[in-house]
């Protein structure tokens, strides 16, 4: 009963937070992480009483739950892989635009119990134990983690002697000061019962990593204080090709770069700068940017604020923006044809 009361209280907390999130995407992410946290914190006994009530007992129902969880988890994993494929490439090729804010591009998809929706515990448990450790779920072929021989199921214990206790610690790995001239990062890995030391090559890239946010909204954010690009599952559904996804990730990474520039600008002038830099970032990573204008126009009709022509619509598909995007695309394609480097600082 006490647990139930606590749950009730937290429910109020949630809805309060939810109201507040109408204005900014940040609390929504917090909300999401909070919910995952809640899932992890509630003792299994409290849940099993709810779940294994009379209605859940037949084998057919269990089989159905199993099938759905498996399918849902695979869907999320496929999306994580896709996001990783696109974002790691962009981070890597944008390294010199990110100035001194560099981090190692690893090409890793990791999980931890805390951030895994409850429904996906079972499908993961079939492959690896579900616990608080940071476990490798997938490595991006050809990228440092894969080249160093990390495999699915490995537990990342520490990097450069610092213990890794959450996905945040992995995200906060940076190349600066003492380690900025190192060639590899020493990883301590637990594989089964053995502990291995693996040196993972350092490929410097922009330090911001991309993360999935489970939400129906078609949206993505540059979350400054977490140093993360949040991409919703709704957007991953909407962006049909990797090129379209690259346009969005480039744009958000552009925001991150501009946050750290003196006098970076606000509102639509910031959007304009991020559009510009975002296209460069996407093109550098080898993505086709020719569908950009059409893509943003389509997107502006998919979002609530875009469709209701609300003042809060930060990405209007306006004439000025269209002209600016087209000019940028032309500039980039010109440079590509002439074989010049894609450097946005020299036109």
């Amino acid at each position, binding site marked *: 009963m006490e647990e139930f009361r606590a749950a009730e209280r937290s429910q109020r907390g*949630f809805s309060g937070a939810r109201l507040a999130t109408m204005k900014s995407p940040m609390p929504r992410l917090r909300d999401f992480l909070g919910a995952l946290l809640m899932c992890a914190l509630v003792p299994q006994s409290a849940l099993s009483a709810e779940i294994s009530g009379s209605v859940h007992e037949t084998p057919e129902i269990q089989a159905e739950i199993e099938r759905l969880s498996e399918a849902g988890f695979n869907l999320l994993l496929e999306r994580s892989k896709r996001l990783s494929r696109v974002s790691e490439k962009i981070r890597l090729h944008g390294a010199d635009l990110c100035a001194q804010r560099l981090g190692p591009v690893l090409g890793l998809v990791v999980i931890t119990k805390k951030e895994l929706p409850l429904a996906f515990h079972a499908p993961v448990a079939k492959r690896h134990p579900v616990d608080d450790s940071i476990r490798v779920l997938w490595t991006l072929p050809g990228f440092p983690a894969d080249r160093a021989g990390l495999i699915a199921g490995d537990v990342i214990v520490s990097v450069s002697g610092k213990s890794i206790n959450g996905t945040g610690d992995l995200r906060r790995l940076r190349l600066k000061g003492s380690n900025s001239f190192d060639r590899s990062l020493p990883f301590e890995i637990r594989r089964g019962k053995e502990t291995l030391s693996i040196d993972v090559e350092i490929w410097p890239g922009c330090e911001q990593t991309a993360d999935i946010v489970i939400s129906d909204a078609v949206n993505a954010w540059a979350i400054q204080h977490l140093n993360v690009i949040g991409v919703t599952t709704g957007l991953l559904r909407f962006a049909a090709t990797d090129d379209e996804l690259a346009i969005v990730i480039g744009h958000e990474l552009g925001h991150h770069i501009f946050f750290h520039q003196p006098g970076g600008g606000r509102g639509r002038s910031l959007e304009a700068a991020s559009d510009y830099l975002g296209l460069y970032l996407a093109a550098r990573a080898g993505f086709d940017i020719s569908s950009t204008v059409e893509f943003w126009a389509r997107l502006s009709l998919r979002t609530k604020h875009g469709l209701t022509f609300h003042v809060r619509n930060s990405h209007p598909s306006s004439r000025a923006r269209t002209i600016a995007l087209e000019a940028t695309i032309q500039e980039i394609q010109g440079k590509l044809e002439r074989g010049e480097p894609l450097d946005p600082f020299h036109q």
Partner: protein
Amino acid sequence: MMNTRRRVALAAAAISVTTFACGPKLRPPAIKDSQIDFEERIELGTRALKHLLELQSRVFEVSYAIRVQGASLCGANTAPILGSLHLGPVKFRGRQIQKLAKRTYGGDEELTITHIVPGSPIAEAGVHPRDLITAVNGRRVRKEKHLERALLKGDGGSIRLSLRRTTEDLQIEMPSVTACSHKAVVKPVGRTTTGNLEKNGFFISLEMVQFVESNDELAVAIGHQLAHKILEDQERLVRKNFGRRSYRKKHLELERAADRLGLCLTARARYDVVNAAAFWERLALEHPWAIQSNPINPVTRGPQGVAPHAWIPNRLPAIRRISDELARGREAAACDLSAYDLGDSG
């Protein structure tokens, strides 16, 4: 290879540090807010409005068929219906879009028709979009609610319609059609879901309209929510009995009943229900909280409130069974409202 690349990147990083501080600045093509002038505002708004009206029309067309075919299941909650969509029900936030709508379609005083359902009596009477409805059954109408009231005052057999097309006035008489009075409204809520509205009606979220891949899937979602509305009316009659049940049990029972009745409504309107289970499954996979956890347990229900049309025990197999039966033309069981034991005490 990587070492070279790394060295280049680090050297470039060092250069850009100085570049950012004192070197050449980035010169993106300039955009100023003032460059979105009034004229362009209208242009952008019109584009958004057109898209919105397209979505509205699609939902109206599907819901029209379901409401008309399901009229016999709606009990007392039926009313004559026109197969036309008017500017009135475009209820999106912001006055700007309403103003734009008036600007684009004209008709400050009267109801402007934006869409006509093909095959409905009003279509066969030769009415077009952009015609203005001035009076119904001899009563002057200016708003949607006037129209609804005027339709109820008819003699039941036919509807007299006064229209204005550009400058000429027309009088039209056409047979009356009865439908469930619950309207479907498109509402942007940020989630892929459907829900009841307080008065006569229900909403299909904007995200849901964009999520469905065919009109058949849209019909499944609309049928399900209309079923909720019908059951809500029933439930109101038997609330006393429900009071003794737990909320959870009631939720599960209502959800199951709505699935069954919803499929019946969808099938009656001649929409394909064979893929209904696949549609709900696709929706469930998008919401991990909907799969295993108890949808109404506040701890496991996820960050966005109750998982939209959550998986409930044995839901998909049940839907598959019902849709198979309906596809084979046996609709008696699902469509017999008296078989829904909502009045039984639990």
